[in-house]
Structure formats: structure tokens, C-alpha cells
């Protein structure tokens, strides 16, 4: 139990997937301009990351490893991710139309969000058990959400005050804000340690 909590906290604070591993940056830069979009996207990410981790772990350990075909795990993982994103989209369209209208545009984008694939790859590299994998997946997704929401909020406030140099507007200033936030997150270092 203690170790699970440690994995969870490490994934959010000390080993934040956006600010330490620099993953999921493409949607990060594109969406961190608006607080509402950033929040919508990160809810969708939490959902998809947990779902794909829950599917990919059994596939890797129960099918690929016993048959000695772990070489092709990249292909298998990416197909699982693309398929589950498509499936979630279809289910939502059929049963929860308002929800689909709310994050409809984010779902197709998630397939190429590095966070989703990265979490699945980390599960394999760090040899987590099933429960640890789920906790790590949720923690990483929440960590990503915290990073993007904070950056989006700072960016919105900054635009109100507005004195950003012309060439720095847009992606440039988001990088600088994220850099300062990453510095701040380094302050959590040493709080929890995982391998």
C-alpha cells in the first residue's frame, strides 16, 4: 500500500510526466492557451491513459511474453490505443451525446498524444504489477493535467496584463512558463523516490 502511494505521488510530483520527462508536449503547446480546453483535454487524457494501461498490461504479460513476440509490442500498443480511442468515441456518440460534444474534438488527437504511449512503455520498462500500473497511469495523467492546467491559467492571466514581446507570443511564452513551472516542481525532488 505504501509503495502504491509512493508511485502515485512520484508520478504526480517528482516524476511529473510533462515537466520531468517532457512528454505530451505537442497538445500541451497547442492547448495551453485556454483554461477550458486544457481542462477538457486532460479529462479525456486521464480516461484514455487509464483505459489503455489496463488493456496493454495484460496483452504484454499474458500474450506477447509467453509467445516470445515482445519485439512487436510497439505496433500492438499503438493499435490498442488507436482502437480504444475509436471505441470510446463510438460509445460516447451512441450513449452520451452531450459528453461527446464536449470532448469530441480532443479524442482523435489523443492517439498521437505521447503521454498515452509513454505510460504503456514505462509499465513495461519498469516492470510494474497490474495494480501498480493502474496507479501509475492515473497518477501520470493527473500530473499531466496539473501541469497543463497551471500553465494555461498563467498564460490566460498573462494575456490579460499583456506585455509579451511579439515574437514570443504563442508557443514561445508557453515554453518559458513551463520552464519556470518545471523549476518549481524540482523543489519536490527528494520527497518520494522511485526507481
Amino acid at each position, binding site marked *: 500500500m505504501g509503495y502504491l502511494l509512493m508511485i502515485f505521488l512520484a508520478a504526480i510530483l517528482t516524476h511529473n510526466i510533462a515537466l520531468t520527462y517532457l512528454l505530451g508536449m*505537442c497538445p500541451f503547446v497547442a492547448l495551453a492557451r485556454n483554461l477550458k480546453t486544457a481542462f477538457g483535454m486532460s479529462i479525456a487524457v486521464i480516461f484514455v491513459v487509464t483505459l489503455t494501461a489496463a488493456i496493454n498490461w495484460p496483452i504484454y504479460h499474458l500474450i506477447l511474453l509467453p509467445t516470445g513476440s515482445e519485439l512487436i509490442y510497439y505496433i500492438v500498443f*499503438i493499435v490498442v490505443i488507436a482502437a480504444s480511442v475509436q471505441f470510446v468515441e463510438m460509445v460516447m456518440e451512441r450513449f452520451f451525446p452531450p459528453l461527446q460534444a464536449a470532448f469530441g474534438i480532443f479524442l482523435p488527437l489523443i492517439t*498521437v498524444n505521447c503521454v498515452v504511449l509513454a505510460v504503456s512503455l514505462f509499465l513495461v520498462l519498469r516492470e510494474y504489477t497490474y495494480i501498480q500500473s493502474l496507479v501509475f497511469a492515473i497518477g501520470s495523467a493527473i500530473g499531466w493535467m496539473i501541469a497543463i492546467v497551471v500553465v494555461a491559467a498563467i498564460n490566460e492571466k498573462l494575456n490579460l496584463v499583456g506585455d509579451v514581446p511579439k*515574437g514570443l507570443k504563442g508557443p514561445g511564452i508557453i515554453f518559458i512558463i513551463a*520552464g519556470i513551472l518545471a523549476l518549481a516542481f524540482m523543489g519536490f525532488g527528494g520527497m518520494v523516490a522511485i526507481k
Partner: protein
Amino acid sequence: MLLKKIFGSKGNKTIKNALWYNHPIFSMCLGICSALAITNKVDNAIAMGAGVSFVLIATSIIISPLRKLIPQRVRIISYMITISSFVIIVDMFLKAFFPVISVKLGPYVGLIITNCIIMGRAEAFYSQNKTGLSILDAVSNGISFTVTLIVVAVIREILGFGTLLGYKVTPGGWENWVIMAMAPGAFFVYGVLIWIYGEITSR
């Protein structure tokens, strides 16, 4: 002028777009995950740049001739499968010949699959243009990406470790800027480079 003579006006435009006007990293902000994460050492940057360029070129050779055969609805997943097959080749190549770099790059080799440059070029260019032009586009985007990675890695390695490709280049008494070798350094270097690019292009 010379480029126009060799590649024709369309090819000339493709090259110029990839190298400057639609620069994959600075102008479109594509593929920055791997670009940010591995640029603390120059040798990592070269390996990653070469890997991404190889996958780009190979993908363009496969997808562009097949662009009329791939059904519209399943195109994304077929691009993904093509890309990930080549990424597996890159992964095995690095493991066999450069085991040290392979360990250092870790999961980031696999993450070439979700590198948006490849997906973005496949969707925007290779699915609509002739094979020759697509390969030209892949080569110039690959060069553009690799050069940017190397520039960032040179800055970060000199400031963060005081070395260049492992050789010491800084004078005695140099204090390493540890932050440059870590995540915040990547953000700051890219932010400043994008700023410079933005100032030049908006003029």
C-alpha cells in the same frame, strides 16, 4: 536559384518550407516531445535526429505510392502501423550497434511513433503528393529536425556539462549550469529559440 534549377519550382518550395518557412519545430511546434527530452547531449541528439529522419523517409516511400489505395477511413491507423514498423527497425538497430545510446534514449525511441512530425507530414503531404516530391519533403524535414536538435544539444551540453560530444571545451574554473541539463533548461532554450525565430519571421 541553384535549388530551383535542380529540383524545379515545386521542389524548391518544398525544401524552403521545410527548412525555414514551415519549420517543423519552430513554426509548427511538431515533434517537440522527443526534441525536448533528449537534447541534453549532442550524441543523443544525433541518434534521435537520424532515427526520426530514417522513419520519415521510409514512411514517405511506403505511403506516397499507396496514397490512392489506402481507404480514407482507415488511413490514420495504416500510417501508424507503417511508422511503428520502421520504429522497431530503428530500435533494434540502436540496440545492436549503439547499446549505450539505446539505453540512454530508453522509451523515447518508441515514442518516435507518436512524433507528430511524421504523422503530420504523412497526413498533410505524403497522402496528397507524388512519391518523388514526398521523399524530397521527408529528406528536408529530416535535415531540418536533426539540425535543430543538434543546435539545442550543443547549447545545452556546453552550458550543462561543459563538454561537447564528451570532450571538455570550457575553460578551467567553469561552473556547470546544472539546470541546462535538466527539463527546465530544455524549455528555456526552446522558448528563446522560438522567440528569435518569431522575431525574424514576423519582420
